[in-house]
């Protein structure tokens, strides 16, 4: 019971510290009002004022996602995906009768903050396993903390190379760019008949840089010559100099490793410069937000991903409808993968017997998770063991089929 009063004290402490960051503060206040009754009850319990049963029935799972800051554009849909899956699972009786409680903390899309939040969730909140962090950049820094503490860390949005080679407690259901990009490129090359390409990528971010490395390798394998390679940096807003250069280079397609935030303005500016070439993007460009940000300039963008808003599979349609009902907006890939990840974890949890011994339970869960299978919004899913830096078996990557799409009239059209 000590930890509940501890939590309240921490909340007050944080509220004071957070005066400089009002939004986070506000979300804390919201969360506080939502939970206030529960918290007050717990405080009473902590001081022994009210007699009552303990609430050990809940299975506590942590999530560290970027809820504020620039990366919150990915972190917030992820939280919505978790919450949707959670409400469905809990409404359906939970895990063998026990409900899942999700403790979500804000890692702000920063490495240092991700490490702090991981430590807090693992050592203070004593979660059984944890999801996150949002960015591959942060995962490189924080996942070793979970590995060291022998707690499962399950990434739903980390697609850069090398994340799962950190250790055998590291899982992800986000398909790596290494698996997807060659397929996208091959199909786009077949259908558009491209002969030589220009490459454009963000060189100061591990996600877009790793996407570039994979594109480069795939282009070499397919023997497609690259006429020019251009870069940009996170937060850049002006891409016309690079695009002007690409226009003069004689390329017949632009291979782009970017997130929507930069990718969409790039497409608009390219069309303004009179560049009608096809764009081939990574899964960072697989979001209906492309159509909001590059409206009417978004045609002829090729992307590959296990998830598509247009995929007519029953599970996906059900997910999209439920998500729209709950959040009044279309989901994106980040939401879909978070939603599926919660179900994948639930499959493993259903199979194991929890003893209440935290360390033993954490290990039991780790041992059960690799065999979990699930068919959800992103299609049939299973894990595949990755190889560590030392050549020994390490964490687990996703095995899924890529859907290749091209944009037309503000919609994705499935090609394969």
């Amino acid at each position: 019971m000590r930890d509940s009063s501890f939590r309240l004290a921490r909340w007050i402490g944080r509220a004071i510290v957070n005066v400089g960051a009002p939004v986070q503060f506000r979300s804390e206040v919201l969360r506080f009002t939502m939970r206030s009754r529960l918290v007050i009850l717990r405080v009473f319990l902590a001081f022994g004022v009210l007699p009552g049963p303990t609430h050990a029935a809940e299975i506590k799972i942590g999530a560290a996602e970027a809820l504020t800051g620039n990366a919150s554009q990915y972190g917030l849909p992820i939280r919505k995906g978790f919450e949707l899956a959670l409400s469905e699972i809990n409404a359906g009786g939970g895990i063998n009768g026990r409900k899942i409680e999700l403790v979500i903390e804000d890692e702000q899309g920063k490495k240092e903050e991700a490490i702090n939040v991981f430590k807090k969730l693992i050592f203070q909140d004593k979660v059984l396993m944890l999801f996150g962090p949002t960015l591959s950049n942060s995962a490189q820094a924080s996942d070793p903390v979970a590995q060291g503490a022998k707690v499962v860390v399950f990434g739903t949005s980390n697609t850069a190379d090398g994340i799962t080679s950190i250790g055998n407690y590291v899982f992800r259901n986000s398909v790596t760019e290494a698996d997807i990009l060659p397929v996208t490129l091959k199909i786009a090359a077949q259908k558009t008949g491209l002969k030589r390409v220009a490459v454009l990528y963000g060189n100061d971010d591990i996600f877009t840089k790793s996407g570039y490395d994979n594109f480069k390798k795939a282009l070499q394998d397919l023997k497609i010559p690259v006429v020019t390679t251009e870069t940009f940096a996170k937060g850049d807003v002006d891409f016309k100099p690079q695009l002007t250069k690409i226009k003069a280079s004689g390329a017949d397609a632009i291979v782009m490793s970017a997130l929507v935030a930069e990718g969409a303005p790039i497409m608009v500016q390219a069309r303004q410069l009179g560049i009608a070439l096809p764009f081939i993007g990574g899964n960072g460009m697989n979001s209906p937000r492309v159509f909001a940000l590059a409206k009417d300039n978004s045609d002829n963008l090729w992307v590959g991903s296990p998830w598509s808003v247009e995929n007519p599979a029953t599970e996906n349609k059900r997910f999209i409808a439920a998500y729209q009902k709950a959040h009044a907006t279309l989901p994106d890939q980040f939401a879909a993968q978070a939603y599926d990840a919660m179900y994948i974890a639930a499959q493993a949890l259903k199979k194991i017997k929890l003893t209440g011994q935290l360390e033993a339970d954490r290990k039991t869960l780790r041992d059960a998770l690799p065999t979990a299978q699930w068919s959800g919004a992103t299609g049939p899913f299973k894990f595949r063991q990755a190889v560590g830096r030392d050549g020994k078996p390490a964490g687990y990557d996703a095995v899924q089929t890529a859907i290749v799409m091209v944009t037309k009239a503000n919609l994705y059209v499935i090609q394969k």
Partner: protein
Amino acid sequence: MLAQQLINALSLGGVYALFALGFTLVFGVLNVINLAQGAVFMLGAYAALHSVVALRLPLLAGIFLAMIVTGAAGWVLDRWIFAPLRARGAPHLAPMIATIGVTIVLTSAIEGTFGAENKRFPAELMPTEVLSLGDVQITWLELRIILLAFALMALLLWGLKRTRLGRALRGLSESPKAAALLGVDVEGLFRMTSVIGAMLGGAAGVLIALYSNAVFPHMGQPMLHKGIAIVILGGMGDIRGALLGGFLLGFAEVFSVAYIGSTMRDAVAFGLLFTILLLRPQGLFGHTAQRRA
């Protein structure tokens, strides 16, 4: 390609110069390094976006409203932060650090209200006509951005040179004490400067948002870094320096991409600034440090 890159550099340089003007004006007159200028720039973009999307105003009215909103922000900034610090004779670092706080508050407030994700101006409101001159493509939008940036700069320069207010401002930046002795309303002018500086920043914010199709809460940060570099390059507090510095940075960036490589974009641009400062530590139009003291 060269002609197109010239156009690119001209529009980018125009926005940089506009941003740097507001920044340098506040420094020249108030002697404050206003690190909130980046946030004000972002506020301008959001104000215009909101008035166009939610209030359904035409684009030009949106720009006008954005300048009013950011002008008001400039007023508040001076009334509640710079003025009290001035009255207490706070050291130079105090207002600068206070403006960092303002940046955090503004950015978080916008992030909380409008969300962290990128926004854009509705496509149907944007002029889409493209002017093709041979190989060069200029959208009407770009043309208007360049014209508007130049018009605002010309207005400021004319105002400073020819009007009573401008003379008073120039006197004030020479010596507040002497200006006060000559009967200039020093406090009023300080406030006015903060308002004008913020309005220029806000206008630059709208223009870059229109130019690049991207509005997001953290858009002010890279701009602020560039603005600081431009102002230092031009000579702290010097209007001509900010103008020239803005265009210089725009051209340096664009041409380093065109002829050296985009990886080197910032390295070349800032390397150039560094070299100029080695040769002229006071900046292109800078006064010597002793004169101010």
